[in-house]
């Protein structure tokens, strides 16, 4: 892309995103697009943990669930609380960030795949607690979940239609993109990426890996918290079954499919993972079969993800070339 076009690309994408509800003919497709944005928000959060900091988290859905339930607790007849939308959303974000640290802390010593199984365990634990904490005191509503959750409303406007949710979720997703970029290109992002590339070298470069990992868990979790609050207010009900392990795998697939660590890649991944099953919907029985096959094929032909960036090879001067070959 010529450089002079480059600076128009961001406004162009924003304009396009804003125009979507005017172009898209029906509520179903609007709903799918809104869901893509919601999952992009979640995937951006997981991208911070997996893509930036290189911590393989298979229980990310736990934070999504905690965020949803916190919102549901604070804005539904369940406890008779009806906090304003923004306040309840903030509470979800803060709570999940705290849980991110709580879950991250015991896993800091663990290496890649051990971390994966332990986070997976936390995901399962969260799911089981959501189901079973309806007695002796009814906290979570059990498997029936919490219903009649308040829709978002600001300044006296209550959101009901898919296109309204689309703008709300798009705004938060946009914020997530901006935050991801700022963090990636900051001292914290440098620390995360250094840990991902070589944890020991990162320590020797003076990076406090414990603090950096906890920050990654907290930020990643808080994105999921925001996503959870949005899901609860959009679906107007939450159930433990919203937060199964397969959901974690889906979100991870979004991150990896698009290209680990690449922000546009993650959004593309979310679009594919949400939209593909919808496109295959007409094939009913064969839909999941085709989805699984497609995941495999995509990985075979683009193992680094669709939008992964690989820099050009070094144009070494001849002298260096000889040296390199001698090694």
């Amino acid at each position: 892309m010529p450089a002079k076009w480059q600076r128009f690309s961001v406004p162009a994408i924003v304009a396009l995103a804003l125009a979507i509800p005017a172009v898209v003919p029906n509520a179903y497709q609007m709903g799918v697009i809104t869901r893509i944005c919601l999952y992009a928000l979640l995937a951006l959060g997981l991208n911070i943990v997996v893509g930036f900091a290189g911590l393989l988290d298979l229980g990310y859905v736990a934070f999504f669930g905690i965020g949803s339930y916190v919102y549901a607790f604070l804005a539904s007849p369940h406890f008779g609380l009806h906090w304003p939308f923004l306040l309840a959303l903030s509470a979800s974000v803060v709570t999940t960030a705290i849980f991110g640290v709580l879950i991250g802390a015991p896993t800091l010593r663990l290496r890649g795949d051990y971390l994966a199984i332990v986070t997976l365990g936390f995901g399962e634990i969260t799911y089981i607690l959501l189901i079973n904490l309806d007695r002796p005191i009814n906290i979570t509503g059990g498997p029936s979940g919490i219903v009649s959750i308040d829709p978002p409303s600001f300044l006296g406007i209550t959101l009901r239609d898919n296109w309204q949710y689309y703008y709300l979720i798009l705004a938060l997703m946009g914020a997530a993109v901006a935050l991801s970029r700022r963090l990636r290109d900051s001292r914290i992002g440098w620390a995360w990426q250094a840990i991902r590339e070589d944890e020991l070298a990162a320590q020797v470069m003076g990076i406090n890996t414990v603090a950096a990992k906890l920050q990654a868990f907290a930020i990643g979790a808080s994105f999921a918290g925001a996503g959870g609050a949005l899901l609860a207010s959009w679906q107007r009900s939450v159930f433990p079954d919203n937060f199964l392990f397969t959901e974690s795998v889906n979100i991870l697939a979004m991150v990896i499919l698009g290209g680990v660590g690449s922000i546009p890649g993650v959004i593309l991944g979310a679009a594919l993972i949400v939209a593909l099953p919808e496109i295959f919907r007409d094939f009913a029985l064969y839909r999941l079969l085709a989805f699984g096959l497609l995941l495999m094929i995509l990985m075979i032909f683009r193992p680094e993800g669709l939008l992964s960036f690989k820099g050009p090879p070094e144009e070494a001067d001849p002298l260096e070339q000889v040296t390199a070959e001698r090694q």
Partner: protein
Amino acid sequence: MRKIAAIAAVLAAAWVLAVPVCAQDTIKIAAGAPLTGPLAKQGQEVANAVKLAVEEWNAKGGVLGKKIAVLEADDQGNPQVGVAAAEKVAADPAVMGSVWGITSVTCIPASEVLDRSNIVLITPGCTNPKVTDRGLKNVDRVCARDDFQAPAGAVWLIQDLKKKKIAVFDDGTTGPRGGADEFEKKAKALGATVLRYVIRAGDKDFRPILGTIPKDADAIYASIWAPDAALIVKQLPDVGLTVPVMGPDGQFEPVDYIQASGGAAEGNYVSFLVPDVKKVPAAQAFAKAFEAKYGPVSSYGPLAYEATNILLTAVQKVGKPDREAIRDAVRATKGYQGALGVSVTFNAKGDVDTQNIYIYQVKGPDFIQVKSLNLGS
């Protein structure tokens, strides 16, 4: 990379602009159910029963002078998928109503979506009270609710069979948990002792849990699906328990329960929402037609068939493709005489006023109806 982005953009545009092609001379009925996944079998019976009813209407010339088509909506028993499926249904202007089973957890969010488009949803098998208790105008239910069905089980075990100490199981999902809760409430009111157990759907070895049931328990109420119930009755001998097991409608499955248990289910009880089609003269035609096309009726087929007929009758009564009017006409159904020999009248919430529960006992390869209970108003 740019090429991929371009291809993606073109595909996305094509998908977004692909307005559903709707021939104006059809009316569509959505059949929502888990057509894939663990509950696919029961879900497909719902869809098949809807198709059968629609074919019969079409054979008689359709409705409003138009042919009727069935739009299958697979919710996979998963709330999010259910929402997406419902959105797709709502987006099709030809859809005039839906028959949606069988899991409450998908039915509830799906009904919220359909409500925004005034599409009526009649459920043949979602028994959770919350399905209708939310006061939505578009949700009606042709089957009995968990808070009637499970108490009927308690009445049967405690009053008829004189059981005193009952182990109650659920599998940690919405419907079964709700049923177990209702059973516990009623059983305690009737003076029995209740012990609660939770199994994990997907587990296969329940012996460790069964082993903790006290040996003086004299019955089990298993608010779980047929395959899990079959496992439990097969594993009971391993822990030395011989007590009758009773369960709700989810166990009304000749193959997945009786046959799968290999004889271990003999003598057990199941409550169901549909009377024995063999015993209802009015249902014979349906049972034969269904069996000829899709195999024996084994679960919610009759109620899905009934729901479809109620829906199409309402469409005919309204006389025009007006979703809102059809929704209200369904709710106004009074004294509808369907294929099951029971008259259907919806109350203000959308529940049938006759909360009919039928108790069956396993005898050989079949369920034999041993009692019918009407706990409705």
